[in-house]
């Protein structure tokens, strides 16, 4: 085996990506826990945790740039570097959605509230499970598994549409106090961010397929 230093660099980059993925996974779970409990302190912790993810993302991009510039990778090596970069971008955005959910949670915590509708719990569980599953597919670099995970996004979309329609109906009922209107709009926003996490999972699935096969695909 030659190119030992390069092989080490690629392994280290992969490890950094998986570390970043683990952080994002926890961040999403923590955001959903805080949401369920209208926990402002928990939401604050989610917002703070974003800094370390952003820093890891910055380091990863610098390292990838450096390796491409110095090692002139081709074939699988080049795919790995590009794939790691693509996936890191998606993970960072998922983290951003978790932060947005945390911000909305802080807003909701300051408003009169009932229990969350069950669709939120279902969407949260599905999104969180999808993130876990796609990270398993990433660790295995398993294109088939990535496709299966991506296909489950339809269920999140269906729940989102149902939730969106019902919240819009509530807004349309009228006779709301401004605080009620704010609560409903905030909830729509939370649902939207959950739905976007699912979309990013689909993007990661596409990146895993690229990584393992070298073909750029579009999964709907």
């Amino acid at each position, binding site marked *: *085996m*030659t*190119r030992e230093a*390069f*092989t080490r660099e690629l392994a280290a980059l992969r490890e950094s990506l998986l570390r970043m993925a683990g952080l994002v996974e926890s961040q999403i779970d923590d955001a959903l826990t805080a949401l369920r409990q209208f926990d402002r302190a928990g939401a604050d912790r989610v917002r703070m945790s974003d800094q370390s993810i952003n820093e890891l993302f910055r380091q990863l991009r610098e390292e990838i740039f450096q390796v491409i510039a110095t090692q*002139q*990778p*081709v*074939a*699988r*090596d*080049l*795919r790995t570097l590009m794939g790691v970069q693509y996936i890191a971008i998606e993970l960072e955005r998922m983290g951003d959605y978790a932060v947005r959910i945390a911000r909305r949670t802080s807003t909701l915590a300051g408003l009169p509230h009932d229990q969350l509708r069950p669709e939120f719990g279902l969407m949260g569980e599905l999104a969180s499970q999808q993130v876990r599953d796609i990270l398993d597919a990433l660790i295995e670099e398993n294109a088939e598994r990535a496709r299966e995970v991506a296909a489950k996004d339809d269920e999140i979309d269906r729940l989102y549409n149902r939730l969106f329609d019902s919240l819009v109906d509530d807004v349309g009922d009228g006779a709301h106090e401004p605080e009620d209107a704010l609560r409903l709009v905030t909830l729509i926003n939370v649902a939207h961010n959950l739905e976007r996490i699912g979309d990013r999972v689909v993007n990661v699935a596409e990146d895993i397929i690229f990584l393992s*096969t*070298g*073909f750029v695909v579009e999964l709907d």
Partner: protein
Amino acid sequence: MSAGGTEAAPVVLRTLPGASPTKVSIERVSFYYGKFRALKDVSLQVPEKRVTALIGPSGCGKSTLLRMLNRMYDMVPGSRAEGRIVLDGEDVVTTRNLLELRQRVGMVFQRPISFPMSIRDNVAFAPRLLGWKKSDIEETIERSLRDAALWDEVKDRLNLPGASLSGGQQQRLAIARCVAVNPEVILMDEPCSALDPIATLKVEDLMGRLSQSYTIVIVTHNMQQAGRVADYTAFMLMHPEHRHGELVEFAPTVELFQRPKDKRTEDYITGRFG
């Protein structure tokens, strides 16, 4: 993505080379130096007016294969070829007209060699041997030096010795000498390995332009060069046990460098070989 209501044109950097007829058909070719089999059963269709690169580690037979295309091996005592190499219907392996073959299939070597004569005479050398008319030869000198992207640099000093040129210029002079007799195929055996990076890039640019008129086959140790210049790439390897060279994979270069099909190709181009 759309812009202004119309579909945006896709951005195309480099596509698979378009279909091209076969210029040289290499069919189950083997080659022996005495009893040693240096190449075994190589089959390859070299497309017309495209650059085809032969890559692989030392000893894989790529230079042997290249030299078979214009029978350079005839000078090696005890050597023997099997199989067919068909150039426009004629078998190179069995042809008796070597002069015509080498006029049709020219060669540029690793080290820039200029003959010990003026730049002008270097280019006119082969046409004079072939008895061309003087006026034709004068025309050929300018055309060949232009084809080799050297004219502008030497037009005012055609009577200076070829050896007064830099290494990169001398290599382009060798290319001018080669194209002077209107070959159909140009063989290049590591044409840039003795050149600095700038001279290398000039010769590489030149290959791209020449491939509009000529079929080019290049042997290179430099994989990045194959990636830059070749439309098609053949990866060859020495058999670990029998030590003969064989073809592992032949594909459009963009495919070979993105998604090689054979693990041995992947290992070699990513530097995991050996």
